[in-house]
């Protein structure tokens, strides 16, 4: 268990956020942690699953941060797969 700070953007939001995740967090959890700062604050929720994009790849929801090789202060983008 180790904290991993990320630079994160939720698609259609306007700013890059510092979001702390855990290296054992799955992408589903990472998406929720990023969405916490944006959805219902600046963007409305959607009835669709959220995905994480890293290095031009959309990661599987069950993949963890360490499995994906995401390093501290990497940039990730979260979006609704609608």
């Amino acid at each position, binding site marked *: 268990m180790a904290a991993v*700070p990320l630079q994160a953007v939720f698609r259609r939001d306007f*700013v890059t956020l*510092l979001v702390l995740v855990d290296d054992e967090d799955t992408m589903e959890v990472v998406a929720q942690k990023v969405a916490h700062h944006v959805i219902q*604050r600046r963007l409305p929720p959607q009835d669709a699953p959220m995905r994480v994009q890293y290095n031009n790849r959309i990661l599987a929801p069950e993949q963890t941060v360490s499995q994906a090789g995401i390093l501290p*202060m990497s*940039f990730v983008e979260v979006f609704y797969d609608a």
Partner: protein
Amino acid sequence: MPKLERSQWYDLCRDMNWSFKYVTEEEVFPEALSHSHGIQAAAWWDWDEPYKITYREYVHNQAEKEAGVYSVRSALARSKFFENLDPGWKAAMIAHYAVFAMPEYLATFGEARMGRFGRAAAWRNMALFGTLDEIRHGQIQLSFPHALLHKEPRLDWAHKAFHTNQWGAIVLRHLFDDMLTANDAVSIAIQLTFVIETGFTNLQFLGLAADALETGDVEFSTLISSIQTDEARHAQQGEPTLRILVEHGKKAEAQRLIDVMFWRGWRAFALLTGPAMDYYTPLAHRRHSFKEFMLEWIIKQFNDQFRDLGLERPWYWELFLQELDWLHHALHLGLWFKRRTLWWNPDAGVSVAEREWLEGKYPGWDKRFGTYWDTIAENVRRGHIDHTHQETLLVPCNMCQIPVCSPTVGVPPRQLTHKDRVYTFCSEPCRWIFKQNPARYAGQLSIVDRFLAGHIQPPDMKGVLAYMGLSPAEQGTDATNYSWAFEEPQAAAAVKLPQTAAALKVAS
């Protein structure tokens, strides 16, 4: 004894230039402080300012200006003018004093450096007046807010801001250290007096003084007008310096200095002046939008000067023009969301009428930014104020230190690795500026770098606010206590806000 006309003695007394015999040129004008760009000493002696003034005239003029400004302040001291100011205008004013007072003092260092290390006596003479100007500007912009402290304690930030780690203070210290305290005489003449003063603040102060008068803030208007007339005089140091560089084959170096500081100036201008013009200034008193001001005043003048001096527009010009449509709107949203980290109360500026004005001035604003404010207003009406604050830090650019905002989707921030450290930039020009001189900028820690390095304890927002020097009483809140969120939606707005009526019922 008959008195000579000024034209009969001015040049003789001013031009105290001579060739050194007992010391070297380098000993008198070290390159690190002077930076001749290899241009011979005597060539600099052609330096000539367009507008001339003697010390006697200077003292006379300044004494009159001081008497005028302080008499207005005395006349208004017993009035209720401050209490009656619009909350948005107060925000602009409280922000202004902290943003300008200490940098004016830092500009004293810049002017004094030119006054000692400028390569021509005429230049050093003009810089001496500039030094005195900047001391005055620093002092007067501390004195005026100080006199209002009993009405608004946060005006103390006029002095305090630069002595804290508030994120905006980090932005400004980084900018002004680059431009003033850690700069050489030639670069200061070009980057401070040509780019920032001639290009941005001289015109900004003209507009600001007019806006203040329009809003009923006679004191602030008089103060700003008084400062502007000094700026107009000492800002003229840039043009003759540029002419000498261009005439001696150093156009590329001059262009690089301009390109660096125009971009840096633009970022700071978008952060501070953009929201003040388009969101804080009362709607009834807005004479133009920020974009119109930039196009009709700032850009027109820059274009004329670039052409006159044989220089080019900066290489990122098209990008800059695109940013006029969105950058300051995004930064305003960020400022408002992070209002607890500000020493003023930002005015959301999104009442129904203001939104219509914004859409008129920036077609597409409603679709691009209005939707954020719809969600925010909904939260306010439901009483979810906690959802209108950002619980984490915004990632700042490692060059300008301003949060990284992006108009694009799926485009990662521009990054660069230097000596095993990854740097993040808000834009290509910021990355370009860093690459010009990595050693100059690499050691700076952004607010996020400091957070991750453990400088901020406890490592949460409470710790962040304490680190920034903001007590609960100093932290910003919405300027109008969210009144804009409870306006009766008009027909056009109701279509865009389908949940408004239901939300109002819940809130009530």
